[in-house]
């Protein structure tokens, strides 16, 4: 019934999806951890990253330029969004923050739908990663393997920013105690803006890197957003390592369950989330007290 090659290939798929979710969730979680705002437009950021890269690819035919353009565009969008709107919501209740980011997400999706229509768009994988790789025990699409590597590099970069730089120190301190950071004379608003930009960029980068694996539609971010939530709840809100762990767990659960019956993928994911909520309400690597 279960064939080993297909199980291994599903595990690989799970790894690729997990890495993707880990990166997107990291973006969501550092924004929440630092700014205290849950960005419901994060899925739209992922989608826009894909489309921005798609446009860049149309003009340049270069995948690398597409990735750079897609990420930078989303970062810029994040910065503008923080400056113009989110900033005015720091002192408003969580519900209002949820409402406004939710509304912005819808606007973004509809703008993209207006420009590109609902039809799916294709971004081919870069030439060097095309085809299939023989791993000895099975054949696997080369680009999917590359995705795991690319995202691992991106997560590494994010790790360095968070744990090895001055900015990262402030961000981590802000997650622990943002009032204290504020009173140390650090211009938190500028930090907030940069963090929002980086968090959005993580989603945008994931969006364009993932684009060759799937086809782009304006609604592509919605499912991802839901999965990201589960990742964050499992891993613990505000925790970067938690996002990675949660991402990998969620990715494997979805992939392995899909092998048996795709209809149950979400059920299993939800069951895992419930289990975590019952056993460790603050997430696997979350800290008590942040809500």
């Amino acid at each position, binding site marked *: 019934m279960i064939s080993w090659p297909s199980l291994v290939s599903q595990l690989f798929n799970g790894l690729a999806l997990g890495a993707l979710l880990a990166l997107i969730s990291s973006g969501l979680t550092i924004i929440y951890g630092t700014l205290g705002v849950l960005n419901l437009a994060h899925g739209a950021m992922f989608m826009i990253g894909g489309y921005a890269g798609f446009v860049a690819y149309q003009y340049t035919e270069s995948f690398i330029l597409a990735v750079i353009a897609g990420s930078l565009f989303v970062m810029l969008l994040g910065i503008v969004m923080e400056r113009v709107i989110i900033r005015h919501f720091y002192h408003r*209740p969580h519900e209002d923050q949820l409402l*406004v980011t939710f*509304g912005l997400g819808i606007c973004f999706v509809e703008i993209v739908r207006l420009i590109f229509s609902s039809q799916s768009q294709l971004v081919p994988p870069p030439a060097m990663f095309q085809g299939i790789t023989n791993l000895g025990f099975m054949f696997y699409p080369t680009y999917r393997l590359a995705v795991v590597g690319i995202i691992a590099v991106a997560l590494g970069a994010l790790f360095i920013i968070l744990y090895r730089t001055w900015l990262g120190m402030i961000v981590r301190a802000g997650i622990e105690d943002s009032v204290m950071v504020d009173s140390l004379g650090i211009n938190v608003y500028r930090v907030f803006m940069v963090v929002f930009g980086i968090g959005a960029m993580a989603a945008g980068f994931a969006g364009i890197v993932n684009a060759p694996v799937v086809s782009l539609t304006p609604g592509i971010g919605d499912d991802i957003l839901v999965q990201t939530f*589960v990742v*964050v709840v499992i891993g613990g809100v505000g925790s970067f390592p938690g996002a990675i762990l949660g991402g990998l767990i969620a990715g494997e659960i979805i992939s392995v369950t899909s092998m048996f019956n795709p*209809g149950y993928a979400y*059920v299993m994911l939800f069951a895992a989330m419930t289990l975590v*909520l019952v056993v460790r309400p603050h997430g696997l690597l979350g800290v008590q007290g942040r*809500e």
Partner: protein
Amino acid sequence: MLKQRPFLIETLTAIGLIVAPFVLPHLGFAPNTVNRILVWGLFGLGFDILFGFTGLLSFGQSAFYGTGGFVAAYLLTRTGFSNVLGALVIGMVAAAATGYLIGLIALRRTGIYFAMITVAIAEVFFFVEFNPLSDFTGGENGLPGVPTPSFNLGFTTIHFTNGWSLYQFIALCYFIGVIIALRIVRSPVGAILSAIRDNPLRATAVGHNIHGYKLTAFVIAAAYAGFAGGLLGVLQAFMPPDAFTFDTSGQLVMQTAIGGRGTLFGPLVGAAVWLFLQDFLQAALGLGAAWKLVLGVVFVLLVCFLRGGIIGGLVDLYRLVSGKRERRDAETEEPEVADAKATQQPTPAPMQAKEVEHPAYTGPILKATGLTKRYGGLVANSDIDFSVDQGELRGIIGPNGAGKSTFFKMLTCEIAPTSGQIVFEGRDITGLKVTEVCQLGLTKSYQVNQLFTGLTVQQNLTIAALAELRGKFRLDLFRKLSDVKDLTEQVEHTLALVNLTRRADTPVAELAYGEKRRLEIGLALATSPRLLLLDEPLAGMSPRERIETVKLLKSIARGRTMIIIDHDMDSLFELVQRVTVLQEGKVLLDGTPEEIRTNAAVQEAYLGGVHGEIAA
């Protein structure tokens, strides 16, 4: 606006629903559109109780909408069950039961966690409906052939078919929904729900089991959603699978915010705006798919600039026009003057504490032994032994960081001690929850005000008094607030005691600081505690206010035991019979005010060895 003349809102709703079929066609509303608006409005009634009144923003209501709808539709199309109303009710019950189970999980967390969990849950339902249960739900085809209701009255059969005929049935359902929702909102439970929205911590501390009430709101919302979902199937003669989509939940949230949260009618108004604009933008302006973008932009602007939505905006406008004069009158009256007038009034009789459960018990009312609290390596309290007799007035002093507030938090069971035991009236309360301890008759007023800031002074005290009169959890959803025995007396008495009678209908946000401090004490007092802890009741008060408050404390001390932390030693020593001095988490000394005043060790602790009397 919800507590004007009795039945005013009900009457206006009835008139509106009766007039609608005669007016709305002229405004370009097709009967089918009106029916859909009503279904959304009914769906939203429950959601507004959850979101607008309780402050729980769920993005997963589609789960219950779909559940109710498909259960009803399945009964009517696949089983030969022909009673439409019966099927709708069964669908509603199924949705409520589902809501109960889901609520148990989702309400383990609050705030953004809650929002994320509800999103995930709704998605699970969507996938389950499409895949594992597609034999029952028709998968992506939905369930066609849902009949419309007919009632056999013996002599004739009324059949609601479509258009304005079906409107009569749906409007009746909506009207009943409104009546029930209004009853709930005006009941003690409704009052507590708004308290939970405003300050869950204090709602817990005055003795309400807020988890139970939140779950209640969640189930109510699910029940409304389930019934509305069933109506959707009846309305379209077909149960569409997209009832389960995240878009459904999102649309409900947006409509509620557009119309105005916390108003009950917001979702109806929001749905009307939504569906009207959808038709208008698509058909009249030929915008095609762009209509949703326009709505999205409208929504974002409303959230940014008009928090109360359309109804909230209209209410503000109405107040601006009609309330200007009233406000000017109120402002000319200075609070200090009001205070001065009140001080000449006879002091109200002291308030009775709760009756003792075991009147035979005569030992110390509170006894703590070996109480220790460690935060990692930091020892906040270490090995405190502390005992207070019945009717005693005890003061606690100590330099900043001596662990006084931590000590209080342990006594009221807000935080659990690392080790040690707390016995209240002979009963071990170590490890109990703050709600239970408050119900036993032990509560405290906070160092930093913990008020229900969105409510008026009177409503604040009502919340606290309800906890004492109704216990920690009770489902009197249809009882009028005014029917709760002794409530009015207790609230008015507390108002008089803390000298806020004149400010009863003032929102907390408009109170002066001293008034807020008095209300803070009043909140604790309204639960009729036998042991009242006061954490720095005089902090931040003007000398004048201090004199007032000391007088207040003296008057409430009659017939109850109190422990007071404060830095104002002159006032404190005048009040209390004994003083305990804490230093670096330990009891330094225990004695009469006179002994403390002249003790060298205390002077050492406070003044660093400067000799002479403590001057406060």
